[in-house]
């Protein structure tokens, strides 16, 4: 078993375990911290996929910013414990859990049965050899990412800037509102 495989299995256990505890922990703060763990695991998974820069961004944006906000808001609320952590209705609850189980099974089934190959590119083609070579080299592909982002998808990039601006303004407006459009009684 190669190091790659060891790492993958270890990380997938971490990620799935932490992901499950996000859903199963009754204290939302534990959920949030489990989610942080998941994010770190996903960052490591990105690194195993040679996306080092994205791994760093995942750490900075998700663990360093988004989850901090979640944890801060949870602490702001002082919600010690969710009274009803899960849905009460037995029938719908059963359906929901069954639905999720079936969904998981189906997804895995579809993935394993419909894509027989490990790659979408036909084996033996020159491109496949390139891919194998690149995957083995573990080269940093920040440069390719950056070229794609700034030369090909520049419009999306600028639009995201505008989106962030709009949200920055909207959030301030939201936080100033007293909550709700109706007068307080």
């Amino acid at each position, binding site marked *: 078993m190669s190091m790659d495989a060891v790492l993958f299995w270890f990380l997938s256990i971490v990620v799935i375990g932490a992901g499950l505890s996000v859903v199963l922990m009754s204290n939302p703060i534990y959920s949030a*911290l489990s989610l942080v763990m998941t994010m770190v695991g996903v960052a490591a998974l990105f690194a195993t996929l040679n996306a080092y820069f994205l*791994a*760093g961004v995942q*750490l900075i944006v998700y663990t*360093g910013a988004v989850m901090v906000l979640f*944890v*801060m808001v949870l602490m702001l609320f002082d919600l010690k414990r969710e009274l009803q952590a899960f849905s009460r209705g037995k029938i719908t609850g059963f359906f929901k859990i069954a639905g999720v189980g079936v969904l998981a099974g189906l997804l895995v089934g579809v993935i394993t049965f419909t894509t027989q190959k490990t790659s979408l590119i036909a084996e033996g083609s020159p491109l496949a050899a390139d891919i194998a070579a690149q995957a083995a080299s573990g080269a940093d592909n920040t440069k390719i990412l950056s070229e794609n982002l700034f030369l090909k998808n520049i419009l999306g990039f600028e639009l995201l800037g505008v989106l962030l601006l709009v949200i920055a303004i909207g959030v301030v407006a939201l936080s100033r509102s007293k909550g709700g459009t109706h007068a307080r009684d």
Partner: protein
Amino acid sequence: MSSMGTTTFEIVINLVKTVLIFLMMVQAVPILVWLERRGSGFIQNRFGPNRVGPLGLVQLLADAVKFLNKEDFVPDKGNRFLFYAAPVFALIPAAVAFMAIPMSTPLTVGDSTFLIQGYEVNIGIVFILGISAMAVYTMLMAGWGSSSKFSLMGAMRAAAQVISYELALGLAIVGVILVYGTFNLTEMIVAQQGPLRFSGFGFDFVAPTAFLPNWGIFFQPLGAILLFCAAFAESNRLPFDLAEGEAELVAGFHTEYGGFKMLMFFIGEYGHMMIAAGLMTTFYFGGYGIPGWTTQEVYAAGLSMFGNETAASVFNTAIHFLSFNIKFAIFLWIFIHVRWTLPRFRYDQLMDIGWKTMLPWALFNTILTATVIFLASQYIIG
């Protein structure tokens, strides 16, 4: 796979080396504490600890023993898990990030090469930023886990402060990245070898006196100042230690802590200081480089002195390690000196400085750097 080595020998040495660097970082903390106490004594015209051992040096040991022997307890209302987890989160990210800083030239023994750093990360800066961003959880976990109002307030303040200054920090680093064109710290240090040279606007200018090194500080003076200031805030040091403003919040988010867990917070705080000092050295002051001599020259000198490649490599590494540590120590001393020199800000002033002063200046620095690089390049090509 390379940094962990291919042979058993290399793997073992690398593991031992990593542990050593970690221990070095942890051991630096008592020394810094001693330095801080003696230094404050020196600044405030008193003695500081001077009874235990020569110059009070054994005081370190006594402190450590005291810390380790404290009773370990959790307040009844506190959240046990978070209360314990918080100190770990203070220590580990600091250590992990610190290990990514290169401290000397690689050491070559026979066929094996060992890096004098925990591991080499291609995306060095991004990695360090990402890891040290996790320090915020320490404060939040400690503040929430203690279930004390002082702790929670302190935690909120500290978290808001740290994330605010992270913006200025991150933006100041953009200038550095622009100058060197890489995330890799070792490559940055290599780029700072040799005499100061500007190239651009159609001419290639080497500083007339060769003693000025090709350091980043000459290209990014504003960025260096901003990064250094932000680093103070990031490590919750005076004048930015609002989180533990004694007069208001007792001791901030670690009000409830004592003993070994408190020590871990200490290590975390000093660890951030060390990361900041290491980054300052690496970004702006040539890292382990020695002004006036390139690494090759030093290596050649070693070779002619010892006539043995391994010995020359050891010599080279040792000299540069010393050089790094001298610069590193100077920055740590500045941290300590500032702590005992400047008064504390008010909280609203602190946030104003972060958002309304440093962030715009960092933006200005970025724009200026990019524009100069752009214009210079256009001029050369055109």
